[in-house]
């Protein structure tokens, strides 16, 4: 695993998130459920919880966009870059963007698996960099066909617990 410079992380125990735009490939309720599931994979391992907000600015703003979309990293059409996210911090910090030119799927059909990609990008939103462990969710290239029993790898868990400590079982 790797961390961002200065080990950027969220200092509060509760991190807010908001889904501000959706893809036409999946029902909104499915996107909301998969985002919640992705965040649960991380919060299961660390003393941090997530609260969804429906208006205003959240710590983690999540959205779909195509091409240039307001940050310095325009998306590039189908394939190549699928999504990106920013390290914890104010403004763009923590935000996760998904390329609307991809074909997003919940695993029930061909396409880019949104749960897998969202879990990866939200790992960045929490402060993880890319891992060179091919089995890690934080490995930079996308791997097809990982939906059932999808979970974090030991490398991912080690990295996120390096930042936030372990979840206390009180």
């Amino acid at each position, binding site marked *: 695993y790797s961390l961002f410079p200065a080990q950027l992380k969220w200092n509060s125990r509760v991190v807010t998130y908001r889904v501000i735009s959706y893809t036409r490939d999946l029902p909104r309720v499915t996107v909301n459920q998969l985002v919640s599931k992705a965040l649960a994979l991380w919060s299961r391992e660390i003393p941090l919880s997530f609260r969804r907000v429906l208006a205003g600015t959240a710590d983690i703003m999540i959205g779909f966009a195509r091409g240039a979309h307001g940050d310095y990293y325009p998306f590039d059409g189908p394939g190549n*870059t699928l999504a990106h996210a920013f390290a914890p911090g104010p403004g763009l910090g923590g935000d996760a963007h998904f390329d609307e030119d991809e074909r997003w799927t919940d695993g029930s059909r061909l396409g880019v698996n949104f749960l897998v990609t969202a879990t990866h990008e939200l790992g*960045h939103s929490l402060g993880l960099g890319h891992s*060179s462990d091919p089995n890690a969710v934080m490995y930079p290239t996308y791997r097809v066909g990982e939906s059932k029993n999808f979970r974090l790898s030991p490398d991912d868990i080690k990295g996120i617990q390096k930042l936030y400590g372990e979840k206390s079982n009180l």
Partner: protein
Amino acid sequence: SPLPREAGGMSEPQWRQAQDYLRRFYPSNSETREADSFEARLKRMQTFFRLPVTGVLTPRLVEIMQKPRCGVPDVAD
């Protein structure tokens, strides 16, 4: 003109794609003032993907560069 040694015999489109990929995902590190030559960046990518570090483009690297991926760089910049 012939491509440089680091191109490893790859085609010119693959050479250009490799240059774009390395500039995007293996930025030079302003703190360590690491060199940002093609060879230096390629070595960083080879180190990251646990491949032999030669500084020369290979079919395996071209294959990795063509995979769909996350837009965040692989090394901190």
